[in-house]
Structure formats: structure tokens, C-alpha cells
């Protein structure tokens, strides 16, 4: 099964199981969770089932294309089922069968792995899924997102596509994976890994990254009308009505901030104490975007609740 066949098989499987199939986000993200199809839609009462590929960047994981297992950009297959159905584990195992892997002939384990994204103010409980000792997926029940309690709870399945493909194709080196007949993964990404590693570790202009971080930070506040003053118990205050806030452009700027922070981190340009401060700043922005999204959907009367009711 080639890399692209793997993606197609997952797309087909989840489409058949009621998921909306959408496309990756067009900005630098650390994982599928950053995509608004997850970050925004897991907030609030409206149901949501979605699946998509997410090219994900982790600047500190770059190895100049020299390590057969580590990449600064890899591909996640992200599935959100909201509310999490009771048979979500069964669905997941069935998706492995759709990839030609019969779970009863392998050792499949659900190993505790609580997930947290400090920058997104999101956390959940769940597992890593191991297939014969290899971690192939993350499985998370979202408890909070953007600092808001998830009600209902979403189930998030994240497949590590490179790892699964290496397993299915029985290769030890990620660059040897067949993406499609005649084209290997290395052809597509080996040079990219070297260039991005060199950029992230050596050449990224740290002054520029810091400046961009600060400018985008201001942009978020401006687009949301986020006030400097806080309300009771540290509640955020906004000078704009929910429907006047530009939530999506603001969130885009939050993602930029998160990315510039990651690059600065990889460059070793941030001290330990500064690091916590940066994370806190991004989390505040993410929370402002999340609360604004919730307020907007509420102002619109949570339209998908009606759609769901009509479907029943």
C-alpha cells in the first residue's frame, strides 16, 4: 500500500462512517489539532464529525534528513467525532482492518497517554495505540479546548501516517517509503528536511521571528477587540460584539505566533523562563479566539444543533 493509497483508504473509511472530508490548513501548524476544523469545532454544543490530512511541523524534531525516523514535518491523519460515540474504539480498530491489518493477528495495545497542548489551552485523556510495539496513533477524549470545557466531549484520533506506512511497506527508512508508484518519500521531502533543519536550527532570523511574534500578537488583540483589562476572576473582556470580531483571521495570527515561537525554540533563542512566558502569551491568545468563536456560534443560535435535530 503506497503512502497515497493509505491516505485514500482512510479518507474512504471515514467518509463512509459519516465524516466530512476536508483539507489541511494553509498555515504552519504543529498538528491536526491546530486546524480550526478541530480547534474551533470541538468547542460548544454542536455535533461535528470530520477527517483530514494535516502536514504538521515540529521544528525541534528536524534531523537534516539524516535520521530514518525523525522529521521536522510529517503527516497526521486527523479524525474528530463529536460527541465521542461509545463505539469509537471499535471504529478505530475497524479502520486498521481497512488498511489490511487484522488486529487479532497483532499485538494492539492502548497505552495511557494524556495529551496536552499548553499553547492551545487544550488537554484530554486517552492513549497511544501500539501496533506490535510501534506507536501508530494518538487517541484523545478532549476535556478542554482553548480553556473552555468540552461539552460534549470530542474523540480525536490521530494517525501517524509515516509510521503506519513504514510498517505496512516493511521499510526501516522513512525516505524509502513509496509515496506513489515510482516516487519515493525521499524524492518529495529529503531535501526539504535538510533545508528546513538548516533554517530552523541555524539560519532563521531570530530578531525577525520575535518581531513577527509581537506584531501578530497585537493583530489578534485588534481583530478580536481584546481589552487589556480583565474582568472578575481573570475573565477576558472584548470591546467588540461577537459578530463583529474577526475570529478566523485572528486565529490565523495565533497560529503564526505559535509557529514563530517554535522556530525560536528550535534556534535556542529562548531561555527557560522566557519559554514559559511565550507559552502563556500564546495560550491567552488561543483562549481569546476560542471564547470569541463560542460567542459567535451562540449569537448565531448554534446552527448545527438544528441540523442535527432535523437529521434525526
Amino acid at each position, binding site marked *: 500500500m503506497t503512502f497515497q493509497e493509505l491516505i485514500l483508504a482512510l479518507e474512504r473509511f471515514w467518509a463512509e462512517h459519516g465524516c466530512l472530508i476536508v483539507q489541511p490548513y494553509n498555515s504552519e501548524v504543529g498538528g491536526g489539532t491546530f486546524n480550526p476544523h478541530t480547534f474551533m469545532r470541538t468547542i460548544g454544543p454542536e455535533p461535528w464529525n470530520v477527517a483530514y490530512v494535516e502536514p504538521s511541523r515540529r521544528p525541534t524534531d528536524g534531523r537534516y534528513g539524516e535520521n530514518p*525516523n525523525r522529521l521536522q514535518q510529517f503527516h497526521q491523519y486527523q479524525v474528530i467525532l463529536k*460527541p465521542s460515540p461509545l463505539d469509537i474504539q471499535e471504529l478505530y480498530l475497524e479502520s486498521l482492518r481497512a488498511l489490511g491489518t487484522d488486529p487479532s493477528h*497483532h*499485538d494492539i495495545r492502548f497505552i495511557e497517554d*494524556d495529551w496536552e497542548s499548553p499553547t492551545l489551552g487544550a488537554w484530554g485523556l486517552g492513549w497511544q495505540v501500539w*501496533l*506490535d510495539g510501534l506507536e501508530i496513533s494518538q487517541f484523545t477524549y478532549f476535556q478542554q479546548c482553548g480553556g473552555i470545557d468540552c461539552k460534549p466531549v470530542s474523540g480525536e484520533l490521530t494517525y501517524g501516517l509515516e509510521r503506519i506506512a513504514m510498517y505496512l511497506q516493511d521499510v*526501516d527508512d522513512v525516505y524509502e517509503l513509496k509515496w506513489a508508484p515510482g516516487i519515493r518519500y525521499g524524492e518529495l521531502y529529503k531535501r526539504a528536511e535538510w533545508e528546513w533543519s538548516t533554517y530552523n536550527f541555524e539560519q532563521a532570523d531570530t530578531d525577525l521571528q520575535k518581531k513577527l511574534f509581537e506584531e501578530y500578537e497585537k493583530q489578534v488583540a485588534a481583530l478580536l477587540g481584546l481589552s487589556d483589562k480583565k474582568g472578575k476572576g481573570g475573565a477576558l473582556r472584548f470591546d467588540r460584539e461577537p459578530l463583529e470580531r474577526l475570529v478566523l483571521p485572528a486565529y490565523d495570527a495565533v497560529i503564526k505566533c505559535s509557529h514563530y515561537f517554535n522556530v525560536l525554540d528550535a534556534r535556542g533563542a529562548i531561555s*527557560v523562563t522566557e519559554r514559559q512566558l511565550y507559552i502563556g502569551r500564546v495560550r491567552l491568545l488561543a483562549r481569546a479566539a476560542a471564547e470569541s468563536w463560542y460567542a459567535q456560534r451562540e449569537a448565531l443560535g448554534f446552527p448545527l444543533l438544528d441540523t442535527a435535530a432535523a437529521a434525526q
Partner: protein
Amino acid sequence: MSSEFLLEIGTEELPSSFVTHALRSMHASAVELVGQARLGTDSLEVHTMGTPRRLALRLRGLAPSQPDRDETIAGPPWSAAFDADGAPKKAASGFAKKHGVAVEDLQKQTTDKGDYVSVQVHEAGRATREVLADILPQLCQRITFPRSMRWGPGEIAFGRPIHWIVSLLGSDVIGFEFAGVQAGRATRGHRFLAPESFDLDAADYYEAALEGAHVLVDLDRRKARMMEGLLASAESLGGVLERDAFLADECLSLVEEPFTVPGSFDESFLELPDAVVVSVMRDHQRYFAVRESEGGALVPAYLNVVNTAEDPQTIAKGNDRVLRARLADARFFVEEDRKAPLADRLEKLESVVFQSKLGTMGAKVRRLQANARALAERSEADRDACVEAARLCKADLETLIVYEFPELQGEMGRWYALREGIDPAVADAIRDHYRPQGADDVVPDQRVGAVVAVADRIDTLVGCFGIGLIPTGSADPFALRRAALGIIRIALEGPVDVDLRQLIDQAYGAYAGDAKLAPADDVRASLDDFFRGRIRAMLKDSYGGDVVDACLGAWDGSSLRDLQTRIEAVSELGSAPEFEALAVAFKRAFNITKESARGPIDQALLEAGAESALAERFGTVRDQIREATGQRRYADALRLVAKELGAPIDRFFDEVFVMVDDARVRENRLRLLGEIADTVNGIAHFHQLGTKLQRRDPSVSA
């Protein structure tokens, strides 16, 4: 004989640490709730069982029903309920109505505080099945987890989502609902080997039925099966299993039916340090290591405890691949690390924070060198080796391999140092300065390691106390209690003594320029107190709290071995037959002279007989006792006290009245006793001793 009750809560995979935690709370709640509900009998047995997918409770010896209950319930004061003519007021009728009786049935109850209305209530006991149906939802609600979660649209939080509940009393379902799940008799077997749901006929078939469905629900049985498999597989590989209690518990809680699948790796990876290979296998993959013999070389193989073994070749092949990649990573880290000597990492330590108010690790390392030098100069340790080991002991924190495997700190520093050709005494000290890690760990057995270990711990203690980070209650984030205990144990069991006063002053001085600490006297006083508390806690079980207190009282807070010598001497004397009388006599001598002034003894005022005999004997041995005390020969000193002063002082108290009216004679007498008390108190504070000393069991070490 009543029926057995079974509760099983079927869940998604619970984390391994959750299962034992949840079962403990389930057990405690069951005992409490059954007791409160009056369902317990003398033969009540509460047993919990569990796997990653189920928490189960078995109750045997439940009462068939609650016993009836007769109770007197007190109500309002009589005067508030009835008027002077005995006619009922509103309070009386209200109280009667509340308890379902007529006003005529109310009784007068006389108490210290006056007369009250009371009512006799008879409550018929309910059938066990009815009571269980009431308490089971509470029982489920009370199960706790280290962390709980919600799922789907529900509001209830539990360790993981609940899928089914079995609740059977004998063969009857005790129905109730929890977290939206209706309890019944349907359970499930192993997720992959027996996935279909099936009905249990009765509670007592539970374990056998599940075993048929590939689930060993009893933890002990499952563990026995797992260990059997591991030992047999190790043997078939021609080696022995590397025992690992933590890993065993972890693996046990990941499977419902344990199978062992062996795998292997390329022999070339054995060039890595054993500790790295074992850590990769254990921490990343949860594999057991195999050695050629007990403590022998590693075999290039591992044992994997798995939940299914339908196709062991496939499982082994997949795991081999993962392990190969992990070991290749580790080899890469080690090779990278070896490109530069350890000392090159010192510069990086300058930007690593030790504690925000105490500066960087780089500064700490400089203080460690100063502390180690001072300690070495006062002991017989090789000074240059101590300073060099102190300089290098934290360098491996900046290696790739320790970043990846933090538990290998010290171990890897030693390994790299040896390969750089560094003095083995220094290399060993890099590893040993982390010892003892806990109560079960050994102390460094060589002087250099012991010196650096003490230098490191005292720096942390003085620094933290200096900025007010003093442990309170259970809060001890910097493990300061363990650090203090480490120093005490190294001094008492290891190769170097420690002078605590000098050590604290040295470490305090070393902070000059690095951090602003509280005034030296405050730090010294609070640390002295802290160490005394630790010493007491550590030694009281072996020697008795009173012996330790008596010696701590006489000790000046400097040499730890000096304190130990005192304690041993007092403890030894404590087992002598004449001890009790001696202790009583010196206690009296101390108590009676507590407030009195000291001064020269006037021989002329001594009364002939017991008093002058005591004075004479004391005059003869006083200097010998003081000399032995000064030379820390406490056992000798105490022997002299017992032998020379025991009989005379007993006789003195028998025959001489101290508090006579003649002030000059009285004061002279008190001066004699006072001097004796002071001399003995220089060894240990006898007045703090109980008269029955706990005999030291020589098989118990301190």
C-alpha cells in the same frame, strides 16, 4: 449461607496505575457502605479484581437481609411540646407526624438538660437485594482515579468510558443505573480473543467464565501466569530474566491474558552500556531484559508481555523493528556525545537553571568543588580527585543520552569518563554521588564519591533553606528530607565522617556572590533542627527515641559519627543489668540540681558515710570520665560511671537527705550532685532516658 455478590464495571482500557488505585477505593467504599447498610456479618469477605478493561468486586458473607432496628429518636423539649395541663402543642403533633406515630405514642425522656419528647421507632430490615440496589450507584460514584474524564454527551467522570456493568446477587440481577449504563448479567471477554458479549448465570461462575473468555481477572493469578511465562522464555533463550518489579506491575496492568513473545536485536548493540540497552527496552518499549546468568552479560534478546499471541512471528518482527530503531537512536546519541569530552559540557551548565533564586548549574558546580575541597581536606580522601569529580559530576546532564534517558544521569557520566581515560576513582564518583537515591539504595563505598555526594546535598539544603524553601508536612519538592538522610547515612555507613557544623558553614560561605541567602545564624539553626529531626526519625526504631534524644541533647551538632558512638554506648549500657538503678539515680541527680548553682565542693562540709564516699569516689574517677568523654570513648566513660559511681550514688540517695535546713550543707551537697550530673550529661542526657531501654536487636542495622 447467603449468596455471593458480584459487581463488574467494564471500561475502555484503564491506565495501568489507575487499576490498583481504583480497586483500593472500591474496596474501602464497599466495606464502608456495606457496614453502614448493616449488611455485614462476621464472615464478610471483600475481594477486588481487575484488568485494564474491568474493575470487579466480590462480596461473600453478606447478611440475607438487614436486621430490624429499634431506635429512640429525641425530639423537642417536653415543655415546648406539651402545655402545663399535658395538652399537646403544635411541636408535639408535628414531631409525631414526621415519624408516623400518634401523639399518644410520644414518650418523655429525662436527660441532664431536661425533659424531651421522644419516640420509639421500629424499622424492619430490608432484603439485601433492595439495599444493594440503593447503595451500588454510590459505590460506583465513589471509585476514584488519579485523573478522571468525561466522554460523549455525559456528565459523569470516571477513569475511562464505561461500557457495561454486571451486578449479580447469586443468580439474580441487582438492577441499577450508573453513567447511563444499566447493570445486568452480560459481560465481555478478551477484546480480541473473545469479543462477543455473553451472560453470566451466577456470581460464583465469574472467574471461571472469564478465564474461558481469555481473561484472568484476579491480579495475583494473572501475575503468576505472567511470571511463569517470562521465566520459561528466559530459560529457553539460555539465560535468566532480569527481575524488575515496576515493569512487571506495569505489564500486568496492560494485559487481560498474558503471553510472552521473545524477540531479538543485533549483537552489535551490546557495545552500548548495559544501562542504555536496558533503559531503551524498559522505558520505551516495556520489554524485559535477559542476562546470561544472574548479574552476567546481556543476551541480545528481550521478552515482551503481550495481550494476544495468535501470530508471535509477526509480533516479534514488528517489535524487533521498533527496538532496532530505538537502539540505533541511542547509539547515535552515544556516538555524538563521545565526539567531545565531558568537560566541554561545563559551559552549557552555565545557562541551565538550578533554582531560579539560586542561580545556574554552572555556579552550583563551582560551589560543589569548593565544598568537596574543604571536605577532602578534613578527611582522608584524595583532594584532587574529589575536586575533579565535583567539577565533572553534572556534566552528563548536557549529553544527548541523558536528555533522552534522565534516569541514566551519573551512570553515563561514569561511562564516558572511563572511556576518556579519566581516573576511575573520579569516574566512579560521578556515578556514586547520586547515591543513596532512597532508603533501599546503598551509600557510596569510596571516599571520593562520598565526598561529592555530601558536597552536592549540603549545597541544595543550605541553598533551599537560605531562600525559605523548608519542607512542611508532605510538601518537599526538592527532596530535602532525602538529601539530609543521604548525608547522615553516608557519614554513618560510608567511608567518611561528616562534621555538620563545619559543613553547613562551608556550604553557606560558598554561596557568597551566587545568591542572597537568609542570615547564616538562621540557616544554621533551622538546618540543625532539621538534621536532628531526620536523625531521630532514622534511628528511633533501632535504638529507641529516648536514647536518640538523650544523645542528641549532649551532642554539639558537629560530627555525625560522634553522635553515633554516643548512641551505641548508651544503647549498650542500656542492656546491662545495673542500668535501671543507674538511670534512676542520675535522673534524680539532674532533676534536683537543675536550678542550683555550681561551685567548688567544700570537703569539710561533707557528712561522713555515704556522702563523703560518693565525693571521694567521684573525685578519683572524674578526670578519667572527662578524659574518655573528651576522646569520644563514650563506652569507656559510661563503663566508668556505672562501675565506679553506680553503687555510691545509690547508697547516697538511700542514706542522705539532700534538702536539709542548713543552707551551707545543702548547697555543698547540690554542688556535688550537680558536678556529677554535668559530667554524665556530657555523654548523654540521662534525664531524657526511659528507664526501660529498648534492647538493640543486632540484626537490625541503623
